[in-house]
């Protein structure tokens, strides 16, 4: 296992599967009365958030606490430049406190990558700018596998603001690692630059039109899951699309589109990393449908992050957090 988790590309298929397997036993733990295991006792994990976050930060915090690590939350809103301290100084300062892991959310793409080169501790990317969000991709994969089983050959459609989405960038890597087929859909203005060469090199499909993809026309084939990405209303002023109404008509998961999906495949899954813009990229009927696994994603978040902490921080001789035979919480 690598020391850091910066990019989803850091993980091989075997490593992803290991993490997801550990996450499954962690998930069992969540259903118990006593949720704590002693695995990371004496370890210190700092959640360093340079950008607002509710669900990612709290799930990392809970994950650390349930593993018995000392978790500390730091926030430094605003850019490092506006604070007058360089990113390197900030990173070195925290590292000097002899922590074991830095979980970093940063507004700038690549920040975690840079920090990892300056510090001794493990670095976990909790979202860097519009680059990556590898633990989100892992929890999405976990959610998908729970329902669909092995992802080999399964078709996942990702729809929305791809340009500004770190969820998309990590998901396309992890899904491909697990053998899934991926199609990404967005208007040309919200497709990342150079996506033609990129998708050809990495083996995923792209489309400007949502309906032919959802209807499985031609080469697209049947759909197993649809992941809707958040679209920020501010993008309209950037000229990315004219109005919310027009976006919804073109790219929203509307009630009508959901009904057509379900008619073809009753077991189709609807994912959204949150927070949702109900009525814009996803209709309430889709968000709250039996096909929606949005809350499963949130619930998987803690288990997956516990598994990531375990794989990065636990030493070789640290026992697996949940012996298969255990029937009660490990801490009595």
């Amino acid at each position, binding site marked *: 296992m690598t020391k850091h988790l910066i990019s989803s590309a850091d993980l091989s298929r075997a490593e992803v599967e290991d993490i997801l397997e550990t996450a499954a036993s962690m998930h069992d733990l969540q259903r118990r009365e006593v949720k704590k295991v002693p695995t990371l006792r004496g370890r210190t994990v700092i959640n360093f958030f340079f950008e607002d976050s509710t669900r990612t930060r709290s799930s990392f915090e809970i994950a650390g606490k349930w593993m018995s690590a000392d978790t500390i939350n730091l926030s430094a809103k605003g*850019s490092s430049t506006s604070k007058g301290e360089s990113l390197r100084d900030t990173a070195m300062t925290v590292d000097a406190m002899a922590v074991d892991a830095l979980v970093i959310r940063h507004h700038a793409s690549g920040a975690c990558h840079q920090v990892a080169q300056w510090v001794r501790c493990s670095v976990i990317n909790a979202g860097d700018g519009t680059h990556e969000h590898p633990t989100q991709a892992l929890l999405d994969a976990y959610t998908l596998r729970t329902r669909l089983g092995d992802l080999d050959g399964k078709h996942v459609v990702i729809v929305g603001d791809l340009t500004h989405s770190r969820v998309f960038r990590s998901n396309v890597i992890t899904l491909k690692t697990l053998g899934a087929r991926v199609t990404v859909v967005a208007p040309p203005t919200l497709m990342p630059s150079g996506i033609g060469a990129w998708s050809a090199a990495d083996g995923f499909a792209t489309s400007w039109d949502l309906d032919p993809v959802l209807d499985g026309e031609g080469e697209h084939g049947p759909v197993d899951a649809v992941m809707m990405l958040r679209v920020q209303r501010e993008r309209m002023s950037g000229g990315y699309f004219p109005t919310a109404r027009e976006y919804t008509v073109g790219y929203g998961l509307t009630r009508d589109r959901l009904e057509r999906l379900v008619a073809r495949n009753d077991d189709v899954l609807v994912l959204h990393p949150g927070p949702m813009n109900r009525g814009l990229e996803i209709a309430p009927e889709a968000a709250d449908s039996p096909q929606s696994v949005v809350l499963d994603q949130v619930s998987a978040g803690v288990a997956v992050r516990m598994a990531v902490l375990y794989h990065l921080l636990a030493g070789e001789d640290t026992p697996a957090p949940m012996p298969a035979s255990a029937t009660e919480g490990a801490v009595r």
Partner: protein
Amino acid sequence: MTRLVIRGARLLGADPADLLVEDGVITEVGSVSAPSDAEVLDADGLVALPGLVDLHVHLREPGREDAETIATGSAAAAAGGFTAVFAMANTSPVTDTAEAAERVLDLGRACGLTEVVPVGAVTKGLEGAELAELGLMARSRAKVRVFSDDGHCVHDARIMRRALEYIKPFGGVVSQHAQDPRLAGREACCHEGEVSGRLGLPGWPGIAEESIVARDVMLARHTGSRIHVAHVSTAGTVEVIRWAKAQGIDVTAEVTPHHLVLTTDLLLGYDPVYKVNPPLRPTEDVEALRAALADGTIDAVATDHAPHARHDKEHAFVDAAFGMLGLETALSVVSDVMVRTGLLDWADVARVMSTAPARIGGLAHQGRELAVGSPAHITLVDPDREVTVDAAASRSRSRNNPWHGRTLHGAVLATVHAGRVTHDVRNGAGTRRELTNATTSGADL
């Protein structure tokens, strides 16, 4: 009278000859019997070029002396073989008055290691709104001829038109930093393409440069004035310039050494040492730039030497400062990618790194033939010397050197500025002579 004999240098790479320099002027070429009081500089096997001229450097003084000063920048220039450098106006305060320009000129003369030529701002404070005192800068002791808002594009077509018209009487030129601010967002930090898409970095496309260059060559045609395109970075810009020259439009252009070699994929490690404006472009652009320099579409090489304090580079990529060092490595890079590949010979190097930039910048006494009567600005190059660049060994005050650790072929071993040796590492770096606090006898030579 001070005398210097340069022994056995290959003038522009041709047959060896001696040069006698007396009081800063070349007085004899051929087989020279050294007068007894002459300093002798053995240049056996070295190529002699007219002193290199750099149309585009940032010396950071006044304002950011922690990153570079005119003294440290001059030392880096001398080490790079430059006998004249054009210091961009984006200092603090901005070089937008005659007084500010004269101050830069005087500081450069006080160092005496290279000729420091101030570039004047096109607009007050580089704000793009009102013309700076172009005429007063031209009439000052600094005799400013090159005007640029470098770092910013003169994007208002009306201001650009007026500037081009206004500088005609005194033979000025606008050196344009071509970057449409509407096509390059506020956060844009690299070339927009596959790499930026994968990295999630906001970029700007080549068209942001090309559309401004296309407009500017038409404005130059309309006004009958002279335009210079700074740091050309795309194949599209090359096409526009090639077309404009064919129309007889008075346009010249420069390319940086880094745009001749370094490509966008270096950004994959998010190292801000590779953050520069214009951004590093894909291989297709790099190839087009080399071809354009070889065929004369691009007239000159200019470094865009841009020193930055460490702490201004050690931020997240989007927050870090734009720019990289270039003065000390320029000749080695050009030797490596243009001469060794056969795209240019040494006479061509003399043209693109000395004669053409001197002409574009209006320096009659620089970029002259190595012949009797010419001011003695001479750069001696070992075309076969292998150098592995060490950022820590730089004369610059900054260390943002993208060439660190790379091995280049061809190196400047000695520089003569106005008859005086300002750099000499013929016997290895350990014996280099540093001239400090010296003044030139005739700075206007």
